[in-house]
Every structure is written in C-alpha cells, then in structure tokens.
C-alpha cells in the first residue's frame, strides 16, 4: 500500500499531464493483449471491445442486477445491511483510493472487484461480506463436507455478464435464504464456513474455463464411477538371506526365451498402440469446441492455503461442484485478486501459463499487492528506502493519513451470523433434489426421507456420450428398515447386487441374483459374526449349493451339495414337501489343532447315490501325502444268512503312518456308524439351508414391497410414536391445568366483592356470606332443573303437534314425508328421553352438590374460624 502510494505521489504531477495520453496508451495496450489471445476477432469486434473497455473508468462495476428482480424482502434486514458505519465508510474511501492508484499504476488491467452493492444497494467491501462461522454440524468441520454442502445447497445462477464480476454481492444469509447465487455468492459462503472451521481460505476473483464457469460436468468423469486405484502391492522381494537355497539350475535355452519375450513385446506394443489410437479417437470426438471467450470468463472460487488444519498443500475448491483442484489445474486461467475477512490482495504475477506458475506467498509484496497494512502475513520491505528521498514533502502532507492507515483494521463483518437450520441441512438440495450430468453418467440426489423407499442417490452410467444406453444403475438408500444400502443393477449381465448394512434380520450382507426365483444362480453373503452358524457365503446354481463358513467350533469351512433331478411325485406337492434329492455332499474342515493331523478330517464326501463315504485327513506337518479312508455302506448277508456287520473290504484306507488301532474292525465299525449319523445331519442341514434360502427370498420380497423406513428415536420430528406420546402428554397436562383452574374457582368471590374491600370479616358477615352463597347455589340448581323441565315440555309439545299433524294428513302423505316424520319422531323421542334422564339425574345430584358446597364453605379458610364457632 505504501509502496503504491509513494509511487503514485511521485507520478501524480506527471499523471495530470498525461491524462490524455494515458487513454491512448490504454487503447494501444489493450488491443495488443486481446489480439494475442483471440486472433480470430475481426477488426470491428476489436474496436467494439476497445470502446467497451475504455468506458470502464471507475472500478465500481455497473451492470444490471439480475437477482434483484426477485423480490428480496429488504425491510426485515438488520441495520448493518442498510447503512455503513463510519469505519466502513472510511474503509470504502481507502478502497477507492487504492483502486485509483491501482488503475493508475496498472492501467492495462481490469478494475478491481472491491465494494459491490449488497441487497440493500449499499456498497460493502468484499472482505466484510465474509463472515467466518463454524457450523454446529460435524459434517461441516472439514473442507470437503463444507464444499459439498455449499454445492448441494445452492442453485447456480449464471453471472449477469460472464466477462465481468457482478455488481452486487449479497450477504450469505440472504443467499442461504434464497438457496441460489452466482459463483461469488457460492465462494463467499464457502469461504466464511472454511474460515470458521479454521482453514486458511480465500475468495479468488479470476478467470475460469467455460466448463468451470457454467458448471458443465458433462466432460468430467463422475467421481463416484472412478474406481479407487488398486494399490498395487509391490511384493517386497525378501532380501535373499544368507542361507537361502539356490534355485535349481535352469536348463532351458536363453535364446529361445529371448525370442519369445521379443515376440510378446511386439504383440503387446501393437495392442497398446491400437488401444491408444482408439482412445485418442474417442477423446477427439469428445473434445469440446474451442471457446471463443477462453480466458475472459470471470469466475470466483476458493483458495485454501497450506499450513492451517494440517493442509499439506495449497489447493483450489470450485464452489459449484465442491471439488478440489490442484493449484496447477487447467481449468483455472488466471487470478486478479483474492481476499479473506482480513485483507485484500492483488495478483501482480503474470498469468500467461494459467495459474501454474503462481506463487501463493501473500507476504511477498512484489507478487501480491496488499491493501491493508498490519496483516498477519510476513512482509518484505525493501523498496521503501529507495523512494524516501524523493517524497519528502509529500510525506508531511500524508503523514496523518498514513499512520491512520497503518493502524487500520478491517471492520468486522456486516453480515448477520450464518445459520443453517437442521431441516435445511438435512434437505440439503433445494427441494431436496438435485441432478448432475457427468460424462456418460447421471447422478441424482435426494434428501433422506423424501422418497418413501429411502432412495437418496442414484447413479446411472451410460455406454455412449449421448446417454441413451444404460450400462448400469447404482442406487443408494438410507434409513431403510431392511438395512439395504446400495442396489447395483448391471444392465449388460442382468445381475442385481444388493448390499446391506449390518443389522438385517438374516444377517445378509450382499445378495447377487438375476431373478428372485429359488433354485437359480445366486450368491448371498452374510455377516458371519451375526450368525450362529458362521456362514459367510452361499452360492447357488440350479444344480449345486456351496456354503462357506468361518469360526465354527466343528471347524467346518466349506460344504458343497450336488442335487439330482427332482423325482416327480404323483401327488402334486409343493417344493417344500418334495425337495431335490442330494447326490453328493462335500464338506471340508479346517485344521483342528487339538487333534493329531491324521485323525483330523480335512474333507469328507458323502456319495449318497453310491452309498460311499470318502474321508481325507489333514496332512501332517512334514509330510506331503495325507491319509485317506473310504467306506462302502453295503449291508450284505453272508452264506449263513447272518447280516455281515463289518468286513475289512468295506473300508479301504491309506495311512501315511500306519497305526495299529485303526486296523481293528471295531474302530472302523464305530467310525462308519458315526459317519452315517453325520451324513444324516449333513443332509438335514443342507435341507435347512434350502429352506433358509426360500425364507430369505420371501422376506426380501416382503421388505421390497413394504420398504418401511427406520426413524431414529432421537428424531423428534419424524417419529410418529413419540409425537403421539408427546401430544398425549401435553393434552394430559392441559387437562390437569384446567382442572386446577376449576379447583381454584372462588365461590365466594362475587359475594365478597359486595363487601367493602380491605376490611376484616365479622362473624355476622361471614354467616351472612355463607347463607347467601348457599341460597344462590340453591337457586342455580332450581333454575337448572326448571330449564331442563322447560325444554322437556317444549319437546313434548312439539312431538304432540307433529303426531297430530300426522294423524290428520296420514292418507295424503307421500312415502318420503312419512319417512321424514318417522325419523323425526324417533329423534324427538330420543331427545325427550335424554332430557328426562338429565332431569332425574339432576334431581338426584342436586342435594348432594348442595351439601358438598356447604361442606366446602365450612372449610373455607376465610370463613372457617367464624363458622366453626357457630358450629
């Protein structure tokens, strides 16, 4: 600032003389620059542009406000919106001065964006429009949460003139209320939130690409479709240890190998080349037409500098999309100025190579010209000394002003505290819905609970650029009672994949299927810890079922069942009563460390059709072969007709280490009996698995139909049950209150009022009061009885009249009239009966009530002492 001023003052005299010249110079320099960028422009257009540019003298941008057309209710806005405090006025003066000097020093640059008008048409300095606020939502504590929220919450409005900064910059509170804004509004809001969260954030006024300014994502790859890069595990080749054995000598021909490798390489290169060409062709097709206004489109975004909140590297955030870009990105074409809530900096660096060469060291006054002194940025002050001698006399004049400037702080923000209501925060997008179009993808977002099936996000990916052929659909759900989280439909393979959160009644995790019909290709994965049987996965094909287990006490890890064709029964039976016959069950077990290896079965196969059982045991630690045993279950009869229980040829076994006791028939017999039992159990379990599949499918169908949503017990707004409960409680409270009021009703009040106030009651008065009260009550009771009596009589008379009329006109009556009469009669009778009942009841209760009042009066503290004496 000082540097600038000194320079300016030095030149001030010359400036006046050169006033005319300057205009010329501007005209000269401008076209040259423009020509550099846009050689296509015709001469006429150039002149036009020159004219337009030369018109701009004062840095207050004048343009037709667009948003103001929508009625903004200015009346309710606080005073700080409508007026400027003296400090702000002073700031505006400083800014104007600064701007003048700037336009003088850098005549070839566009005017600064310093103090646009706010919604009340009051000029406000941009830095004071930023109101650092920390949001009370944990989601908004990090920059990505904030950026996504801003991009979702606001609807984009294009700048009135894409080549100029807007004339108005509204407060963030208004923007939030309207839920729409241009890039400056977006950035200001986002910057406020980021500063509040502790980031070193700045609003940047600069130039962006067409896609960036128009929020055109059709050339961008949807971030959701990008698969996370598989971190290629570079298997660290263990350093060959000292005694690592040498590999056996390789006896193949080196030459042949080389030739082979060469051939493969060539083929690969060929393939890659083709692929690359293909890609290039595609890219060419997708490339946008060159933008005639490239580099001139004004955009505003947010810069986050490294340092605070453990940000390792400075980066940009585009407020429209909420995405972060590196500060080298091609979309950002130049920076004019940037500001935060403390200060304003002008970029003095050349932007010929977009933003790639910019250095964001704001303390360097050569690169960044600051407006206010006394910021927290480190300062370089080398130039001052040079100019000192020349400006001696001017110094004295400006001394007062300068010292004032030096100590001048940015006034606090005029904007009200930014608040986002929980409802608005949850709804996020305007009307709770947002659609984004990406390259070959379309993303739709909804607020939770907006869709009755809990759908919150849908991503549709297409095969072609025009988005006609659907490739796959991904739907995200929230708050569903069946814990469905993501549904993935692959159009090409027809596979549906449902992903579930933990908590499904059947502990389902993933369900892959083509149809919901049972006995088809299907994969179900489970949360195995939530299941008693430790099932991880069950795969089905029409003829087989494979189950994978983990963590079972019997060490079962795998079961594979082959089914034979279903035997047709004569009686038409349902699937449950006619299960498919099993032909083979294979079970595998993991090693049970408590048993020796050759007693621990690794695999057992029940060949049900062949009546055979095969066992394979685990391999011992230092062996390569495993014991095997095969049982034939044939019940034969020997020559004498006795049943053969067990013969040695019924069990064929191979033992790695032959043992004595296993040779015994008894052992074999017992093993076989045991296995027979196990076979039965396995069969039963397989059958149960089938049943479970049916059950799950049924459950899934029901869930799909019902799609009830879960409501947290803490969600007081949506939770109907708690609402009802609360309302009931309130009602009870209200009634209680009424009753209390009634109880406090003072019977004596009207009578006491007749007496002179402030005097103590005498005994006589008290007795009199009591009698009066009682007689009054008696009168009331009688009046009431009379009233009921009168009504009763009236009804009776009416009825009699009607009856009379009916009897007279009975012959001439139409059926409708007759009906009318009859209905009247019944109603009248009902009324009479009720009145009669009420009268009787009143008669019954009246004395009691009278006594009750008397009792009460005796007990009344005001009368009690007198009446007691009386009694």
């Amino acid at each position, binding site marked *: 600032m000082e540097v600038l001023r000194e320079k300016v003052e030095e030149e001030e005299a010359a400036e006046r003389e050169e006033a005319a010249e300057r205009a010329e110079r501007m005209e000269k320099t401008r076209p040259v620059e423009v020509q550099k960028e846009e050689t296509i422009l015709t001469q006429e257009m150039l002149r036009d542009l020159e004219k337009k540019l030369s018109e701009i003298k004062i840095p207050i941008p004048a343009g037709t406000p667009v948003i103001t057309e929508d009625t903004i209710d200015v009346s309710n806005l606080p005073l700080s919106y409508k007026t400027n405090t003296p400090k702000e006025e002073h700031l505006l003066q400083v800014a104007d001065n600064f701007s003048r000097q700037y336009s003088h020093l850098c005549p070839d640059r566009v005017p600064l964006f310093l103090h646009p008008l706010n919604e009340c048409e009051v000029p406000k300095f941009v830095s004071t429009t930023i109101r650092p606020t920390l949001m009370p939502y944990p989601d908004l504590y990090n920059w990505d949460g904030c950026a996504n929220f801003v991009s979702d919450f606001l609807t984009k409005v294009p700048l009135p003139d894409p080549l100029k900064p807007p004339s108005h910059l509204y407060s963030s509170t208004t923007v939030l209320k309207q839920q729409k804004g241009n890039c400056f509004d977006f950035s200001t809001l986002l910057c406020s939130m980021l500063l509040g969260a502790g980031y070193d954030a700045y609003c940047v006024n600069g130039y962006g690409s067409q896609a960036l300014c128009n929020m055109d994502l059709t050339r961008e790859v949807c971030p959701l479709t990008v698969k996370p890069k598989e971190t290629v595990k570079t298997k660290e080749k263990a350093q060959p*240890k*000292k*005694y*690592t*054995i*040498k590999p*056996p000598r390789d006896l193949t021909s080196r030459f042949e190998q080389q030739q082979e490798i060469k051939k493969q390489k060539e083929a690969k290169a060929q393939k890659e080349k083709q692929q690359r060409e293909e890609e290039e062709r595609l890219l060419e097709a997708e490339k946008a037409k060159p933008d005639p206004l490239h580099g001139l489109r004004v955009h505003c975004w947010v810069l986050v500098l490294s340092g605070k909140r453990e940000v390792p590297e400075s980066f940009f955030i585009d407020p429209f999309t909420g995405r972060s870009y590196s500060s080298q990105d091609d979309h950002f074409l130049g920076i004019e100025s940037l500001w935060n809530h403390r200060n304003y900096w002008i970029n003095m660096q050349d932007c010929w190579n977009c933003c790639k060469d910019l250095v964001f060291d704001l303390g360097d006054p050569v690169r960044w010209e600051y407006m206010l002194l006394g910021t927290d940025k480190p300062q370089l002050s080398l130039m001052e000394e040079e100019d000192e001698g020349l400006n001696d006399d001017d110094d004295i004049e400006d001394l007062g002003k300068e010292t004032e400037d030096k100590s001048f702080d940015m006034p606090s923000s005029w904007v009200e505290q930014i608040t986002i209501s929980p409802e608005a925060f949850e709804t996020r997008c305007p009307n709770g819905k947002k659609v984004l179009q990406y390259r070959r993808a379309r993303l739709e977002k909804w607020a939770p609970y907006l869709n009755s099936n809990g759908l919150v996000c849908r991503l549709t990916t297409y095969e072609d650029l025009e988005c006609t052929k659907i490739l796959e659909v991904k739907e995200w759900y929230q708050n569903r009672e069946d814990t469905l989280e993501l549904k993935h439909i692959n159009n090409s393979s027809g596979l549906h994949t449902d992903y579930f959160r933990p908590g499904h009644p059947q502990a389902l995790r993933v369900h892959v299927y083509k149809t919901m019909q049972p006995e088809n290709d299907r994969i179900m994965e489970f949360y195995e810890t939530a299941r008693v049987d430790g099932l991880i996965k069950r795969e089905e094909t029409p003829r087989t079922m494979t189950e994978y287990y983990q963590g079972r006490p019997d060490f079962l890890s795998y079961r594979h069942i082959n089914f034979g064709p279903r035997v047709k029964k004569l009686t038409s039976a349902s699937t449950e009563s006619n299960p498919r016959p099993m032909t083979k069950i294979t079970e595998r077990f993991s090693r049970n460390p408590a048993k020796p290896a050759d007693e621990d079965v690794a695999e057992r196969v029940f060949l049900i059709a062949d009546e055979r059982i095969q066992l394979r045991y685990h*391999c011992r630690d*230092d*062996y*390569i*072969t495993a014991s095997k045993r095969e049982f034939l279950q044939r019940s034969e009869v020997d020559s004498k007709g006795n049943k053969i*229980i*067990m013969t040695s040829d019924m069990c*064929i076994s*191979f033992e*790695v280490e032959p043992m004595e*006791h296993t040779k*015994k*028939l*008894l052992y074999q*017999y*017992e093993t076989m*009996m045991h296995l027979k039992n196990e076979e039965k159990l396995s069969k039963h379990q397989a059958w149960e698995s089938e049943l479970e599949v049916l059950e799950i499918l049924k459950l899934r169908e029901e869930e799909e139909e019902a799609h009830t949503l879960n409501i947290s017990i803490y969600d007081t707004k949506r939770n109907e049950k708690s609402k009802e409960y609360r309302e009931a409680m309130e009602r009870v409270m209200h009634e209680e209150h009424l009753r209390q009021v009634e109880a406090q009703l003072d019977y004596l009040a009207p009578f006491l009022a007749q007496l002179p106030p402030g005097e103590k009651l005498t005994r006589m008065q008290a007795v009199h009061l009591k009698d009066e009260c009682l007689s009054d009550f008696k009168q009331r009771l009688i009046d009431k009885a009379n009233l009921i009596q009168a009504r009763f009589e009236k009804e009776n008379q009416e009825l009699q009249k009607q009856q009379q009329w009916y009897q007279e006109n009975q012959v001439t009556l139409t059926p409708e009239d007759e009906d009318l009469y009859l209905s009247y009669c019944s109603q009248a009778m009902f009324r009479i009966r009720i009145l009669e009942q009420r009268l009787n009841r009143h008669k019954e209760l009246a004395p009691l009530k009278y006594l009750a009042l008397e009792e009460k009066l005796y007990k009344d503290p005001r009368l009690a002492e007198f009446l007691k004496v009386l009694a």
Partner: protein
Amino acid sequence: MLSSGKMNRIYDSVEPRVIDDDMLKLAVGEQGPQEEAGQLAKQEGILFKDVLSLQLDFQNILRIDNLWQFESLQKLQLDNNIIERIEGLENLTQLVWLDLSFNNIKVIEGLDTLVNLEDLSLFNNRISKIDSLDTLVKLQVLSLGNNQIDNMMNIIYLRQFKCLRTLSLSGNPITQAEDYKMFICAHLPDLMYLDFRRIDDHMKDLAEMKYQYTIDELKHREHLRQAQLQEEQAQIMKLEEYKMAFVENLNGSFLFDSMYAEDMEGNKLSCLPIVGELLEVYKDKFVIICLNIFEYGLKQHEKRKLELDTFTECVQEAIQENQEQGKLRIARFEEKHLLNLSAIREESELLAIEKKIVECSEDITELFNVLMTLELQLVEQLEETINMFERNITDMVGLFIENVQSLMAQCRELENHHHEKLLEISIGTLEKIIKGELDEELPDDVRTFFADKDTIVNAVGASHDMHLLKIDNREDELVTRINSWCTHLVDKIHKDEVMRNRKRVKEINQYIDHLQSELDNLECGDMD
C-alpha cells in the same frame, strides 16, 4: 463311618480279592461296546490299552494291581471295596476321573504321576491329613467327606490348587469347628461349591472380612516365596545362558579368586610389603580382561545364534516350499486319477480297460518321478547350504577361540609380570632380611620362605605355576566345549537332513505303492 463299616461288613463274608487278569477281562468285556459293535469286539478282543473307562466297584478288592496296561484309561471307579493303600496306579497317566470312595484308605499316596487328574473322590475313608497331592495341578473336584480330617491347616494346603472349584469335607471332625465354613471360604476364594452347596457371594465377602489379616499375611508370604523362586530361576537361567556362550563365571573375579584359592604360597606372600597393593592392581587388570572375554563371548554367542537361526529358517523355508510343491503335484494328480478310476469302472470293454489301466500306471510312474526329482533337488540344495553353514560356523568358532586365546595370553602376561615383580620384591626382602634391615615383623610361616634364595624362588615359582595352570585349564575347558558343541551341531544337522530325506523317500514310495495296489485291485476286480 458307621455306614461304611456296615458296608464293609457285608463284604467281610466274601474273601478279599486282588485285582487280577480275569477280573479285568470280565469287567472290560462287560463294560465294552454292546450289540453289533460288541460282536465285533468279541471277535477281535479288546486290548487293555485301548480301554478308556473301567468300573470295578463292589468287588471286595483289597489290593490294586495289574492295572499297568491301561495306558489310556481316563476314568477309573474303584469305589466300595476294601482297599487300604493307593498303589499300582502309576501308569495311568491319562486318568481324569478317579473314584476311591468307600474304602479303607488311611493315607493319600501314590497319586504323583496322575497329573491329568481333575476329579478325585476319597469319600468315606480313614484319611486324617490332606497330603501328597502337589502334582495334581488340574484338580477341580475333591471329595474328602466322611474322613478323619481334624486340622484346619489342611485347608491351607489346598490353596495351591488354582483350579479347585468343588470341595466336600462334610462328616469330618473339622466341620465341628465353629467357623469351619468361614475359614474355608476365606482361604479358598476360588471355591464355588462346598459340601454340595454353592457358596454365595455374601458369605464370601463376610469370610474375607473376617480373615482379612491372616489371609493378607498368608498372601504376602506366598508372594515372597514366589518372588524368591523366580529370582533363583532367573539366576539359573542366566548362568545357563552364559554357559551356552562358554564364558560362565568370567564376569567377575571368579577366575582370579580360584587362582588364589589353592595357592598357599601366594596368599602368604601377599602380606609382604607392597605386594598387597601390587595384588590389588593385578586383580583389577585381570578382572578387566576377564570381563572383556565375557563380553566378547556373549557377543559371539549372539552372532552364532543369529547365524543358526537364519540357517534353520532358510532350511525350513526351502523344505516348506518343496512340500507345497509336492502337495500341489499330488493334488493335481489325484484329481485326474479319480476321474480315470471312475472312467475305468464304468468302461465295459476289456481292451479299453487295459489301455486305460496302462495309462494310469504311467501316470503313477510319472508322479513318482516328479516327486523323486523334487526331493533330489532339495537334497542337493540343502547339502550345499549345509556345507556353507558348516564352513561359516567353524570359521566363527575358530575366530572366537583365537581371540579368546589372545586375551588369555594377556592374562598370562599379566601373571608373568606380576610374578617377576613378586620375585623382585621377594628377593629384595630376602636381601633386607639377610642384611637385617627389615623394619616390619613378618609372620613366622612367611619367614620360613626367606630361609634362602632357592626356597623363596621356589615358593614364588609354585604360586606362579599354579596360576598359569588355572588359566590354562579355563582356556582348555572353553576350547574343548565350544569345539564339541560345534561338532555336535554340524553332526546333528547332517543327521537330521538324512533322516528327513529317508522319511520323504519312504513316504513317496508308500504312496506310490498304495496307488499301484489300488490299481491292481481294480484290475483284479475287473478280471473277475
């Protein structure tokens, strides 16, 4: 006691018996498998060593005998007999459950080898002291009701059984004590059931409060004992480790002290003037060298260990990989082989069958060749590695010996130096004595050395020789031991490798034979 007396009287009429073979056979037969399995068992006979549980109650047995064959017995019931001594159970190490209730046992004994015992019943006997159970660390249930235990101190003995949950002592004189229950609850806090009743927490708390001080003291004592034991253990471990490094007792003045332990002359001469100081200096220097040897030895030991570990690791890795390959080959072969076999079974034409069988046996031969090649390859590789290791370890040992010897030489040099100085002083003293200039009085036995020059020279020489001998001995011991360790190690490695190779070859052969015979059987079956 009354009831047991009655019981025993019934059997008094029958002659007391000793467990013999017939009785055992009968019991095993009766209690063995039933029905179909029983038939098979009868057919084959049951070996005593396979029996898991045996019941010998109400047999009027007086003496336990002949049970040594029941190696895998887990449950033995000998209740309701007239046994007087626990004996003959030494071999039943797998026993978990032992019932000796309703006998006439007076002393607990002969149970030391039954380390797996969890449930022991000695109900209704004549035992007066709980004893000799120290080795039964897994004991969970102990039934000692209806005995003659009368001293509370028996309870404290039971504190060492950490797994004990159930105890019954009802019917003992001890139960008459006023605070019998409280005492037990306090002293056996892990106990869950006492005399067939669950101990409630309230009771436990009360007991704990009541006996807090005694228990704390007990605990403290136990703790101390434990700590002492641990320390001793640690010391022994350390010494063992140093021994492994062959430098035990070199981390101090042990060697120096041993040099002077039997050296009469040296000790006597040390009371000469200046010699005392000289000796101090000498000792310091000597000890420093010893410490050097010690540290060097430990370092070398670490190095050797590391070398050996690397070697075993590498060898294990190689073997593991080889095994994996072998398993893979076998799995692949079996897959194919199974298909082939079932194909043969289904084939009806004789010619085709024969052709396929030939194919199969070719496959088997190929498998054999592959497996054997793998094995041979491994043998070759391992041999090379082992030889390399042998070279390295021998070199290492050689270097170690060399360095230790040089350090020992330093010791000797010190000794020589000391010897010279001592000699000088002695002769000086002798001259002084001869001249009668000696100021101090010398003890008489020392004075005898200074009779003449030969005597003193001899005395000093003898001391010197003794010292050198000690040093030499220590050095020799170290060298011999490390050399023998090295040879043993290398021998063992070679032997292990040979064993491994033999085992693997045998395994492969066995497997191939099995396959071949299976195929042959199939052939025969088809021929029929």
